[in-house]
């Protein structure tokens, strides 16, 4: 069962995202966005949502700031948002890097050594179903208000999808391919490098599409949990909420959403180049 990108429930993460089969691109489909039939529905939908927002903001100004107020907050003090966004982005990418390195290494070990798989997978599942938000305060107590708990929380959130998908991908090499290379006595390292890792790449990218947005969530949760934290958009939201500065809260949320979308686009672009031979990169 494939996992939809951005979905975060434990049940959905427990299943590897399943990349589709191999094929080549159809360049004409890349120009599809030029046609109004493709972009107009989105634009209309955004306009409707904006109108609803404005209607809600006029009726409940103490719950929802107007969109012009949010925009004003962003344009009047862009440095504040850029600075905090970079802090959150740094924590997110560093945590993701740590989680990715640990998960990838463990996936390789579990695919090569069944004994490691039997030992590690149950613990990984328990870790996955444990709400990270509940662990966050304990990590802050243990590691202080520095970057360590934030990296650990982000890494933990990213760890499981990468582990499951990579392990599945490494085991996805067709039997007949393995047979061809076993008859020429290819070693484990050769099999891993030439067959298993390239075959796992579509699975790894599917996981990355899930965990890049998740890493932002991880960083924000960590910043909100560390009450002494002074930087980052999570902290900005906490502080602004406590001071009832709703435009700042929503401006920070918009920046976070923008960061998530940008990261997702970046992963998709890299995936298109790296997996140009694979169905998953087709429109």
């Amino acid at each position: 069962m494939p996992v939809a990108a951005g979905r975060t429930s434990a049940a959905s993460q427990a299943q590897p995202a399943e990349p589709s089969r191999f094929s080549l691109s159809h360049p004409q489909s890349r120009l599809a966005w030029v046609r109004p039939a493709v972009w107009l529905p989105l634009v209309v939908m955004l306009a409707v949502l904006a109108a609803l927002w404005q209607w809600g903001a006029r009726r409940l100004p103490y719950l929802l700031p107007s969109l012009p107020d949010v925009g004003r907050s962003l344009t009047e003090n862009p440095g504040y948002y850029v600075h905090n966004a970079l802090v959150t982005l740094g924590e997110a990418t560093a945590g993701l890097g740590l989680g990715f390195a640990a998960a990838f290494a463990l996936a390789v070990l579990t695919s090569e050594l069944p004994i490691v798989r039997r030992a590690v997978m149950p613990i990984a599942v328990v870790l996955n179903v444990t709400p990270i938000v509940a662990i966050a305060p304990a990590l802050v107590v243990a590691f202080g208000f520095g970057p360590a708990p934030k990296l650990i929380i982000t890494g933990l959130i990213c760890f499981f999808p990468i582990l499951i998908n990579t392990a599945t991908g490494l085991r996805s090499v067709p039997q007949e391919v393995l047979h061809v290379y076993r008859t020429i006595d290819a070693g484990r390292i050769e099999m891993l490098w030439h067959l298993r890792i390239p075959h796992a790449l579509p699975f790894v990218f599917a996981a990355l599409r899930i965990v890049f947005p998740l890493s932002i969530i991880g960083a924000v949760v960590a910043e909100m949990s560390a009450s002494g934290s002074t930087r980052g958009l999570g902290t900005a939201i906490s502080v602004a909420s406590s001071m009832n500065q709703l435009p700042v809260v929503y401006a920070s949320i918009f920046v976070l959403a923008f960061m998530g979308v940008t990261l997702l686009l970046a992963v998709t672009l890299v995936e298109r180049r790296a997996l140009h031979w694979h169905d998953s990169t087709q429109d």
Partner: protein
Amino acid sequence: MVGGLVRFPAWRSTELATHALRPPGSGLRARGMEGACKVSGTPALELQSVRRAYGFGHSATVALDDVRLTVRPGRFVSLIGPSGCGKSTLLRLVAGLERPDRGEVRVHGVTPAEACAAKMIGLVPQSPALLPWMSVLRNVTLPQRINPGAARRRARIPGSTGRESAPEIPSMRELLVKAGLGEAMHKLPAQLSGGMRQRVAIVRAFGLRPDVLVMDEPFSALDEFTRESLQDQLLDLWDELRTTVLFVTHSVSEAVRLSDAVVVMARNPGRIVETVELDLPRPRGERLFGERRFHEYEALVRDRLRRAWHSDAA
């Protein structure tokens, strides 16, 4: 009559040898269950009393039982038989992908594992098994870069042909051109037709200059014309390189066209019931299809196959 076919009584494989039908005056030859030819020197393949079963106890399925087969170097031998008769199991045993429960498998006098370590075995599976992210050229050259110590091990095996003793090994590019893939060299597998992909798989295997090439129904998924065209190209490559080939097929005409000998197998348990030696001239072009002897051999193999099928059903 059963299902429109003559139902033969059950018979033991050894008996089949003595009752082998030989069309009068045709000179067609059929041998007994050993599938053996008298071999001087080290045979390319030797299976002695091989048994392979899957599962345990009463539920065990005997895929192969008491299989004996000897193949001289440079011969093209086809395995044919009903589904479930152990053809692919036999192939996997030779390719070192499985081990026999009993008996012995030897490839040029060494175990399949040793032969694999020396890159003496090439495998062409049912599907091309190409790596989709690599160009055709990289797909066929990758196996040459794998296991670089194989040449040294191969030189130590007396039965091996050895690369240095080979007349002249064509480069992968030359082989690809010879197989009609010159234009496709830098394309990805997804850009090729099914027949072209299978040709790439054949070139990949031949390019290793293996002592034994095992082919598991490589043309089964192709249409008739593509199949015949690939048979031509396979024969061209084989005529040049003279590798020992063990070829599994369900097609009688394919087996007769390609082979020096056709080994007929039966099931329950999987066993060799007969070897039909084919005395047809080479090269075997399309003209062969019009020759009477070709059709006589086809009829003979078909008859043996029918008996093998009924030996199980009886």
